[in-house]
């Protein structure tokens, strides 16, 4: 619920360097990652950031490549804001919020070349591996962007290739122990600017009362592979550079939690 003067109240907190739940601006809530949560998926993970929960599942199949890219496999990232996760999500076609979430997370996974799609070719022009990552919001208590990005990477790391049948279809009854050819580990960190304060890991109230936000996808080598600014407020170049610094630091910290 948006109160007419809620933003003023949020700013009162930030002026004292704290947030509605007592955290400091650059504090994350507790993060936990569980792997292999769906046995029907080839790879899966359940990520919790505070009470926000996202599940990611990887499905791998064998398809024909697209006609204009015979030497590339398929990699697709999809996200669904299931109505179970929030009273604000409706069933039916994706909302703007859901579409932006899916596309931003997809960009991070794809542009980072986390998987080189050339490595997914079985027989050029005829058979390629097709990898789908599906993200499902289970409980929205803020910061779905980061939770989805973390869950996607965790599920990709968890994934094992299915076998191959005689007529070149994926064999789900005989899974292999081979992992996906993962070359990079992209993670997205979203920073919110409210007044003069930059904060990470927003709560639902902060997501309703912000000026601008910036999602930064970082690779483990410190390079950037995707950016998305949201919100109707403005950012200076210095602010953006400052936020990128925060993103690099936080993504490295989160990446350590994934180590397995």
């Amino acid at each position, binding site marked *: 619920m948006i109160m007419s003067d809620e933003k003023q109240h949020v700013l009162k907190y930030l002026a004292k360097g704290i947030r509605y739940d007592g955290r400091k601006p650059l504090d994350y809530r507790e993060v936990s990652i569980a792997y292999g949560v769906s046995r*029907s*998926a080839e790879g899966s993970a359940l990520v919790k950031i505070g009470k926000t929960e996202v599940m990611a599942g990887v499905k791998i*199949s064998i398809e024909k490549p697209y006609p204009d890219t015979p030497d590339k496999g398929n990699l697709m990232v999809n996200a669904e804001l299931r109505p179970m*996760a929030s009273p604000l999500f409706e069933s039916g076609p994706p909302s703007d919020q859901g579409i932006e979430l899916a596309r931003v997370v997809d960009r991070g996974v794809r542009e980072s070349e986390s998987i080189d799609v050339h490595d997914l070719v079985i027989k050029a022009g005829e058979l390629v591996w097709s990898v789908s990552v599906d993200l499902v919001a289970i409980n929205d208590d803020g910061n779905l962007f980061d939770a989805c990005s973390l869950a996607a990477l965790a599920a990709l790391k968890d994934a094992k290739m299915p076998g191959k049948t005689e007529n070149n279809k994926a064999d789900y009854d005989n899974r292999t122990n081979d992992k996906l050819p993962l070359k990079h580990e992209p993670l997205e960190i979203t920073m919110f600017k409210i007044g003069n304060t930059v904060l990470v890991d927003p709560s639902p109230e902060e997501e309703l009362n912000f000026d601008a936000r910036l999602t930064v996808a970082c690779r483990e080598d410190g390079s950037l592979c995707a950016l998305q600014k949201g919100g109707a407020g403005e950012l200076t170049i210095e602010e953006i550079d400052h936020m990128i610094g925060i993103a690099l630091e936080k993504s490295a910290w989160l990446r350590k939690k994934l180590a397995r």
Partner: protein
Amino acid sequence: MPYPKRFDGRKFDETRPIVAKVGIIARADGSAMFQIGKTTAYAAVYGPRTLHPKWMQNPKTGVLRCEYNMLPFSGHGERVRPGGGRRAREIGMVTENALLPVLDLREYPNAVVDVYIDLPQTDAGTRCAGICAASMALADAGFEMTDMVAAVAVGNVQGSIVADLTYEEEQNKTETEGVADTPVAFMPNSGKLTLLQMDGHNTRADLKRALEMGREVCKKIVAIQKAALRAKYKGE
């Protein structure tokens, strides 16, 4: 030839291992997870809340709206395309009818109670797991219910009546003996049935025996659902 022993060694009226928890989705008014064997169902309840579109409103009573959805990575093989489709819509309807007998929504005219059932992994018995989760989630949300509702699929595999069929058992058709996959739901106190569907071949006598087995198995499942509801309030 009669099915002498089940593929996974269970007794004929034994369900797969069950894990049940409530209150797992913080933003929902009520929620639950019901896992039976490798089939897992989440249920989230929101309501009573405003019902849109307005033409669906009923001035005499609140409306129960159940949505069943298999997550894209939950299928046995290939990815399941999001969007539900007709099978999901039918399951939503039979789920509503399975739960309505225990509910009295007359206190909520023009409003809706939404139940969202999502399955992250499946191995047969999905609509039954969904109903079990939904029943717990409605109780968790604080709705008045005359009884709990549990559901299980009973069937006739190679001439033997069994409860809680796996995917493997469902597929086990021979030329002479089919599998009569029969999802049922019961309210334990009255012993009355609220869900009945059947797919396959059966005799009148075998069906009766299957339903009786279903009723006893549902009573056992309800005990597990009730324990899950109580567990939420145990200790700190």
